[in-house]
């Protein structure tokens, strides 16, 4: 019995190694792989939560490649995106990414003891925009639904452009905030505020 498990494990590792790098990973698989990569480290090495540098490295290696920050920033800017110069757009994307990574690292601590359920993905053939639904089960028995909006990039890889926590879309939330700052002040003021926040 144990032997079979071992063989199966080796076989799957071998399969993974044999898979061509360009093979297309299904969007729900991608989310699961990325989430598992992070939560397994949190479980095996809880001390990492007290080590901001290591935590940042973990997120940058395991999560960042799966996000399309330029698209996230563009969506969060909404109509204001077109008003920003290319330099401003680059600066916004960079600062927004830093802010999200820092916020996410701060929130990770509360994920340590939770399990994640992945809802079956409904996706039509040829679809390039999907939502992967998950539920994070808390210790008190209540589940928090977390959905990921993903888009298929030109290279065939799926990248996330929004996270919806309990019905609250990250992009929509920031769009309202960005709008307020730009409405009352300017795009440059928004960049300055993001920079100050990230210091």
């Amino acid at each position, binding site marked *: 019995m144990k032997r079979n498990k071992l063989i199966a494990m080796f076989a799957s590792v071998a399969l993974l190694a044999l898979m061509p790098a360009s093979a297309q990973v299904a969007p729900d698989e991608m989310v699961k792989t990325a989430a598992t990569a992070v939560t397994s480290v949190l479980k095996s090495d809880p001390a990492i939560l007290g080590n901001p540098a290591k935590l940042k490295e973990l997120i940058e290696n395991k999560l960042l490649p799966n996000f399309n920050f330029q698209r996230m920033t563009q969506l969060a800017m909404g109509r204001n995106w077109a008003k920003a110069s290319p330099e401003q757009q680059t600066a916004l994307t960079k600062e927004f990414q830093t802010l999200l990574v820092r*916020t996410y690292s701060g*929130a990770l601590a509360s994920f340590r003891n939770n399990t994640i359920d992945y809802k079956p993905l409904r996706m039509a053939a040829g679809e390039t925009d999907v939502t992967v639904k998950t539920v994070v089960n808390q210790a008190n*028995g209540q589940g928090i639904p977390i*959905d990921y909006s993903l888009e298929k990039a030109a290279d065939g890889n799926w990248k996330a452009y929004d996270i*919806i926590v309990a*019905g609250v*879309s990250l992009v929509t939330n920031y769009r309202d905030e960005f709008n*307020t700052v730009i*409405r009352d002040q300017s795009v440059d003021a928004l960049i300055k505020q993001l920079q100050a926040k990230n210091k």
Partner: protein
Amino acid sequence: MSRTFIVHGVSVIAGLVALTLSGCASFRAAAPGDPLEPVNRGIYSFNSTFDHYLLKPIAKGYDAAVPNLVKTGVSNVFQNAADAQSVVSDALQLKGAKMGDDLGRVIINTTLGIGGIFDHASAMGIERGNEDLGQTLGYWGIGAGPYVVIPFLGPSSLRDAVARYPEGLYDPISTLSSVPVRNSLLGVRAVDARVGLFPAESLMNQAALDRYTFLRSAYLQRRQSLVLDGKRPKDE
């Protein structure tokens, strides 16, 4: 016409505090869904001050002094009362399955869970319906209306604010006949709810550029999601 109506409605809800504070806030172009932003921002900053100097310190003290087991028990009792109220909203929305779940939860937790101290129903996998009157109005097609910040209570919409009153009439806690017991429990409930906000608050402080806008957006999105039972309207 509609503007006077809105201002009148809010003055009823918000009372004098809102009106005196509205003088301090400067006027800006209104965000959609928040025509009362200057007034709301005034009440928001009043609430923040109240929270900073009174509610939060008490909640912190309670959080530090009371053992986790007791805190969970206290939360469960209030949650059980909320589940009982949820049954009414389930019924008003003709959601039979949810009503069965919530009713089952209340019966199990009140008996086996000794007055709601233990949440056996969750352990048994019976999910909380999490319905209220504001959602019920939304379910029957009544829009959220303008965003309003209620003194001491925080973010709301006009619809949800209006729904609070009838909901209070069958709140197991605020209908207790003994005034000292009732008031103590209402106080503890506020503190318990405040403790529950600590994780979200630290996340907001980390994430938000402008807390007022952050909170408004999160509140309105969350409420809409609850009205739609987690289904999402397609993004524009």
